[in-house]
């Protein structure tokens, strides 16, 4: 009865008809604390859910049934949005200041990484009840580090990095009442974000405080953390970094991986066979997101302020930029449709979301969304690390 009532409330979204959720998604409206709901079959907006707090640096993960979006807000709010009814299904204020989150392999636990107080908190995905609290203590005197680069990994694990401490922690939540933690110290100065390969094997943290990246092979934890690309750009002057790059989407094509260079107008190409630097591709500005089309044939790049009006497309066969687009100031995020035929871009300062055909690189449609930032499609539900 209750269920029926709740579902009948979805009339505004889909006329009460039964529908799947595999082509749904949300767009963060960062200034308004709201998300727009969208569908990618007809490329339209379905509705809007507000009251989600400060979303200036928000990210989203999905429940395993692709019905609920868990939205992590900057102000520490964790909101659960029901895509079918277009309603808020739950919300907790879980800390003062958070940065991102992840959902466990089995979909039962939602983890949130926090800046203040530093640490990770784990919630029941069903009820949003707090299940585990992992403060990121380091050094002497009870200091807590800011936590970044939180991802899920196979084996009911969460992996994250400690910005202040320069550590990577692997937490096993097979027993949620007694999570076990494995710490890796001295991984390098100021890890700013991290990613996990699509197979869930390698966790790689980017370093802000020094050149290179820290690599952890989750299949061989005893081997410890290994430094990769330690001396690319040695002796060259770095530019001021106006925005931290993101390592969310692992851009991988064949055996090559593409990552942003910190403080340089370059995308780095890494050979994943031996983790050596294969190429530095000159680009328009300092890359923020470097995202591969799902088939790996193209890599799309956006840039930090003051060059954030541009997007470039790299061809992964020739390893060169084949197209420069100017969507307008404040291009903050890109999301490919599950099979990659189209890509959505948020253009914050113009309050537009643009949809491009990735084969012709032509603009197909522009939607009006107020100060859009992150765009997240439900197919993330079934991808490791997203």
């Amino acid at each position: 009865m209750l269920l029926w009532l709740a579902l009948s409330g979805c009339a505004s979204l889909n006329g009460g008809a039964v529908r799947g959720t595999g082509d749904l998604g949300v767009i963060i409206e960062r200034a308004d604390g709201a998300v727009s709901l969208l569908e990618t079959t007809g490329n339209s907006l379905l509705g809007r859910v507000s009251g989600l707090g400060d979303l200036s640096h928000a990210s989203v993960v999905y429940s395993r049934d692709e019905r609920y979006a868990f939205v992590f807000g900057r102000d520490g709010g964790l909101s659960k949005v029901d895509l079918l009814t277009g309603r808020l299904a739950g919300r907790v204020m879980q800390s003062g200041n958070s940065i991102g989150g992840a959902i466990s392999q089995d979909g039962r636990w939602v983890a949130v990484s926090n800046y203040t107080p530093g640490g990770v908190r784990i919630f029941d995905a069903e009820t949003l009840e707090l299940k585990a609290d992992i403060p990121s203590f380091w050094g002497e005197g009870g200091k807590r580090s800011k936590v970044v680069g939180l991802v899920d990994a196979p084996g009911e694990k969460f992996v994250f990095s400690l910005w202040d401490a320069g550590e990577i922690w692997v937490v096993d939540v097979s027993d949620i009442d007694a999570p076990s933690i494995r710490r890796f110290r001295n991984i390098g100065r100021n890890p700013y974000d991290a990613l996990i390969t699509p197979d869930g094997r390698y966790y790689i943290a980017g370093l802000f405080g020094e050149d290179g990246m820290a690599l952890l092979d989750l299949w061989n934890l005893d081997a410890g953390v290994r430094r990769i690309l330690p001396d690319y750009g040695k002796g060259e002057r770095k530019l001021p970094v106006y925005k931290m790059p993101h390592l969310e989407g692992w851009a991988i094509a064949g055996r090559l991986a593409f990552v942003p260079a910190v403080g340089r107008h370059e995308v780095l190409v890494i050979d994943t066979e031996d983790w050596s630097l294969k190429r530095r591709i000159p680009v328009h500005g300092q890359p923020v997101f470097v995202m591969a089309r799902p088939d790996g044939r193209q890599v799309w790049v956006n840039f930090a302020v003051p060059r954030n009006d541009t997007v470039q497309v790299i061809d992964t066969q020739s390893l060169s930029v084949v197209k420069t687009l100017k969507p307008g100031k404040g291009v903050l995020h890109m999301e490919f449709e599950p099979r990659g035929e189209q890509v959505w871009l948020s253009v914050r300062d113009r309050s537009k979301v643009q949809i491009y055909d990735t084969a012709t690189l032509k603009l197909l449609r522009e939607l009006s969304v107020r100060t859009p930032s992150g765009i997240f499609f439900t197919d993330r539900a079934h991808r490791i690390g997203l």
Partner: protein
Amino acid sequence: MKPLSRLLPFLLMSLSLHAAEPDKARQQELIYLLKQDCGSCHGLTLKGGLGPALLPQQLHGKSLDYLTTTILDGHPGTAMPPWRGLMAENEARWLAKALQRGVK
């Protein structure tokens, strides 16, 4: 008419030289930059993120010169970047004042 139009560029120049404050349009741009771009580290509402909170109570007791220099030159060895090149000195000072007062 003629003498005035000839004078105008000089008038404008001396105005901008002595201008303690950026004009209204630029002020709006600076506040937008503060919220959006400084906000990517300090939070859209300046309550802190990777960088510390920049609300009046946190900045209390810190001098205008310190704040202005911080904005222009950053804090080397930390994630606070130098903004010289993207804004002029009088603009950084105006922003620093705005931070001390509190930005709505």
